[in-house]
């Protein structure tokens, strides 16, 4: 009997029970076990370990399941809301960019007309008008970054957990 035989036997022992072994493998294992003491002992230990492990009863409590379902639902709602908000932000951004480009062009021409009308330098008037246009947007963006909107996930999740637990009682 070689080391390879023992290795093959331990592999087949580990596989039987969860996989359908070929008839040839089953026959080989049986004849090997009948002749090999250490492998027979290992097969017994293996079965014993499996029996003891399977006898261990561990169950999740209904409260844990309910709390998990509530958390997952709340998070799913939050993600869905975030996603729809992102779509709205993307659409708003595209529309904003388009209207800004058109209005910037018009204001640029208006600056040129003003400069010509009053005899001022267009190199100063046109950038000045553009700066006056974008300044409010820069200020608002800065304020939004400094004071972000509070997330609704916390209170919403607590409400859902309370609702679920109430339903299970």
């Amino acid at each position, binding site marked *: 009997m070689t080391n390879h035989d023992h290795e093959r036997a331990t592999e087949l022992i580990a596989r039987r029970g*969860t996989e359908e072994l070929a008839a040839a493998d089953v026959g080989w294992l049986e004849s090997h076990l009948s002749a090999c003491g250490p492998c027979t002992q290992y097969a017994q230990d293996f079965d*014993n*370990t*499996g029996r003891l*492990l399977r006898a*261990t*009863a561990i169950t999740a409590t209904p409260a844990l399941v309910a*709390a998990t379902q509530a*958390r997952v639902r709340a998070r799913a709602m939050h*993600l869905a809301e975030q996603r729809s908000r992102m779509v709205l932000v993307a659409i708003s951004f595209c529309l904003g960019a388009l209207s800004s480009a058109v209005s910037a062009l018009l204001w640029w021409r208006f600056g040129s007309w003003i400069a010509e009308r009053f005899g001022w330098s267009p190199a100063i008037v046109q950038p000045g008008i553009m700066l006056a246009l974008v300044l409010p947007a820069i200020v608002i963006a800065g304020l939004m970054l400094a004071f972000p909107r509070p997330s609704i996930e916390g209170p919403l999740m607590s409400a859902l957990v309370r609702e679920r637990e109430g339903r299970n009682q």
Partner: protein
Amino acid sequence: MIATAFIASSLVPMETEEAQIARGLRRRDPELLDALIEQYQHRLLRYLLHLTGNRAVAEDLFQEVWMRVLEKGHLYDGRNRFVTWLMSIGHNVAIDYLRKRSPASLDEMQDPEEGAPFEPPAHGPSPFDEAVEHQQQERFNEALQQVPPLFREVLVLRFQEQMKLEEIAKLIHIPLATVKTRIYRGVLALKPLIKGAAQ
């Protein structure tokens, strides 16, 4: 089973169960997620409990796993069994937790202060049998917690989850030969502990 019933009642009949779960996860379908949590609650908790050895931690990780299933659901392609994918998330979450607890190797990551690992509910036909069985289970669980987590994990996956060796290898990202070795060593490591516990 619950998820199967849910799927059977609501989705295309020709699709496999795994493909239907994958589709539901991509949509973040809350009904499907509820059904999956119901269906796999005991198996996932059992696996996490054996891996961490602490019920409170296992329950926290249980919730974390389902949050990850929700967030990473689009990554499940339905080609493997859902339970294998779920357990691999459980494995990663538990490993992350164990690494945070101690940056050393996984073998050294058992917390001796956490006391008795868990209390399996006893059952049996009479109070005496119940008490004996409860005691035996407690002893076995204590013995199991003395086995290094690397071995304990493969034993739980092989015996409790009835997983094939290839599935275990895929789940915990190790070669097939390592799975065989860990099962072999795990069984041998547990043997004297079971005997010691029985005395």
